[in-house]
């Protein structure tokens, strides 16, 4: 059994990744609340955590659930976007605030999370699967479907 590191280490090492996927999943405004809920839930459960070998996957699973709760609470449905503004892209990735991420935010939850985890947090498929609590194949499929839909929407 890997011993649990001081929670401060967990916060230092993974808060940026958690914030990254939450911004992709619920937008910049909702991300702050979801971040608080995610880390409070994690801190509450932390002493009983039995396997400390994949803390990032564990946190991202919690973050994913909090993002789903957030969407449920707001009763939000994916909103089709009439016009997508053109955005400048640097290093092959757009800024978080720009149109592409708005479109990502409008994807169905699993696809949104898969895209955000892959491109927002740069996670490999296996970790996306761990975060979503599904098989790597299912994660790959969600990612693929999400990207297909984005391509269609963003033309």
């Amino acid at each position: 059994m890997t011993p649990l590191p001081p929670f401060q280490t967990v916060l230092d090492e993974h808060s940026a990744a958690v914030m990254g996927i939450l911004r992709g999943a619920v937008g910049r405004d909702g991300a702050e609340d979801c971040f608080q809920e995610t880390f409070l839930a994690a801190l509450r459960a932390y002493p009983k955590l039995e396997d400390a070998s994949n803390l990032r996957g564990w946190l991202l699973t919690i973050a994913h659930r909090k993002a789903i709760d957030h969407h449920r609470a707001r009763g939000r449905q994916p909103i089709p976007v009439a016009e997508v503004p053109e955005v400048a892209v640097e290093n092959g990735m757009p800024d978080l605030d720009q149109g592409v991420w708005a479109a990502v935010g409008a994807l169905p939850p699993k696809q949104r999370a898969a895209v955000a985890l892959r491109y927002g947090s740069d996670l490999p498929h296996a970790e996306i699967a761990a975060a979503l609590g599904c098989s790597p194949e299912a994660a790959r499929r969600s990612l693929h479907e999400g990207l297909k839909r984005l391509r269609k929407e963003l033309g």
Partner: protein
Amino acid sequence: MKTTIDPGTADRFKARAAEEGLLDVAYTSADSPFGPLLLAKTRRGLVRVGLPNQDSDELLVDLADRVSPRVLEAPKELDEVRRELDLYFEGKLDRFDLPLDWRLSGGFRQRVLRAINRIPYGQTRSYTEMARKAGNERAVRAAGSACGSNPIPLVVPCHRVLRTSGALGGYGGGLPMKQGLLELEGVLDEKHGA
């Protein structure tokens, strides 16, 4: 793509963790004339003081293991501890008034440390006297090792314990620090202890 988080976000998280009773160990570092100290407290009180020559990361891992893994850097929680230590180092405080959490030492060691905690400012005692106060006069070496393992040095003043001969003995923070503390308290002049 690298996402950064606003420092206010982490502060809000820690404030809520404290409100909800989830902050089991709060720590901070603090300056001292001898170098940086690590200060850690639980809801019961001050649980650990790390001296400048001790590795803070190791101390935090040890706290996570022995007290609770809910360890967070939360300087505000230690404001009062820092304030009293600052006054002490300025020579303006001769008695700490801080709740202490003794859980990191048990049995005979804890009895020795509690006896040490009653040695007044500016006075010294011998390891033998501490062994006797703790209930076993012959356990002088064990009393010495209790001093050596003191989790709350400075506040629990193990620097006030000397050999019967008057020699300094040992100190977890190094002998120059022990000598410096005794000079601060006016027990030693600067030539003593060599």
